């Protein structure tokens, strides 16, 4: 275990021998899988504990419901001045919107208070536990910004393909196993719940993880720094471009629909 943490630490400090040693292990893919799962579960731990606390709390009372709806009303009142650009009619509909939200919040509370065969705390605990264990499998986001098997394997496939096209000589297991080391600095996201500091630490973890990913690609495929950078960032740029083009198309479509609706 101590040796394992030693490898992770040395990899975080970008020491080449940690990467080559890791790459040459026979069980490198399994080791990579372990890193991803452990880090994803660790990062999800605070949210899981929060859900556990919620699960053992008593059901929401009428008074708590009233308080929640008052908070929603307050929030809507606060954004009212920001809606100045909207037509007066639309702003007047805000009262109706508030009423509808209140009705749905009440419905949500009523559903969460419905009884099941298992007593509520047990059911809610199981739900929290199942959700937490699912994190390594389902968590997704901007490439390499989250630690999950989806990002690791899904994004890794494109990087692997590009690295091969650029003359990379790495094996599947070697590349995937070594690239999993990008997850290590993401342990900083454990503090994501801390206001301000959490976001800063998350950003540091992301950038640090990116650097490790480039190094892992370089070492596992025996590529030059330039080629490794191309292999890692070209798929990312392609995704960003696709998203921008998609957003522009949707925007154009929506504005076209709005203008045609206004004309008619």
């Amino acid at each position, binding site marked *: 275990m101590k040796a394992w943490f030693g490898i992770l630490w040395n990899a975080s400090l970008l020491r080449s021998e940690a990467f080559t040693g890791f790459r040459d292990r026979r069980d490198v893919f399994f080791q990579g899988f372990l890193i991803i799962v452990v880090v994803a579960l660790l990062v999800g731990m605070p949210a899981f504990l929060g859900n556990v606390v919620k699960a053992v709390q008593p059901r929401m009372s009428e008074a708590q419901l009233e308080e929640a709806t008052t908070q929603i009303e307050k929030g809507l009142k606060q954004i009212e001045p920001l809606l100045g650009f909207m037509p007066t009619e639309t702003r007047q509909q805000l009262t109706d919107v508030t009423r509808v939200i209140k009705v749905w919040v009440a*419905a949500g509370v009523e559903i969460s208070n419905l009884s099941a*065969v298992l007593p509520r705390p047990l059911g809610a605990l199981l739900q929290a536990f199942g959700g937490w264990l699912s994190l390594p499998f389902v968590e997704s986001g901007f490439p390499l910004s989250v630690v999950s098997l989806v990002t690791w394997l899904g994004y890794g496939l494109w990087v692997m393909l590009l690295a091969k096209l650029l003359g990379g000589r790495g094996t599947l297991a070697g590349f995937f196993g070594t690239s999993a080391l990008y997850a290590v600095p993401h342990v900083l996201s454990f503090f994501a719940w801390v206001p301000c500091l959490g976001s800063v630490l998350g950003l540091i973890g992301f950038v640090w993880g990116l650097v490790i990913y480039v190094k892992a690609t370089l070492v596992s495929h025996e590529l030059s720094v330039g080629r490794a950078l191309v292999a890692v960032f070209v798929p990312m740029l392609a995704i960003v471009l696709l998203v921008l083009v998609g957003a522009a198309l949707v925007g154009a479509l929506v504005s076209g629909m709005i203008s045609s609706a206004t004309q008619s």
Partner: protein
Amino acid sequence: MGHRTLSLNLVLQALFLDGEAYDQLRDDDNPFIEGLFMIVIIAAGVALLSFLGHLLAWISMPPMEAIKEVILRTLQQMPWWSDMAGNAQAYESFLQSWDMGWRVFPALFGAPDPLRGAANIIVMPLAAVLGWLVYGLLAHAFARLFKGVGTLNQTLGTTALAYTPWLFYGLGIIPFFVVGGVLGTWQLICRYKALRSAHHLSWGSAFWATLLPYVVYALLLVLAGGVAAVLVVMVMGRQR
């Protein structure tokens, strides 16, 4: 009685992309039988475990009928409800969509359903074997096209190992556990390994041999969609 290559260790090795596992099954005296046996055991086993998870999740949730009732009561408080309920045709249409929606959407969003979980004990092994055979045949044809040297028996045997990521479905014994689409990617990677091992292909040829069956699936899907659209247009045209 042939030699038995399959073991738990081999399955785990294949899952974690150890090339030796693929080579060992390729060199077995009957890789097809070993593969078939493994797929059925994995699919039936994980379906059984998931069924238990479904059962646990189901008893920890309020009955779907009760949830449906609360939502209907809430909808009845919406400003548009009285207008809609006043129009007999609109109300009838709403009720139809409402019932249809409650039959389709809970299952679509993974609401626990022990009946579906029980049916999966039969359906999953059948679907796995069918998927394996179709993919195996297509991949074998493409691999041979790229000058692969493996036999069909070897292709099917090694590609069967691409079902090892399904083991994670077994974690479905934990209620509310969700695997998501990652296993499809993992399976793709295992298939690449399998074809490379069975046919001694270069990485580029193995890449295309792995991917082209998916292209065929996509084309068939587009074709089926087109045929369905034409049929719908024809039926609607006749009704007019």
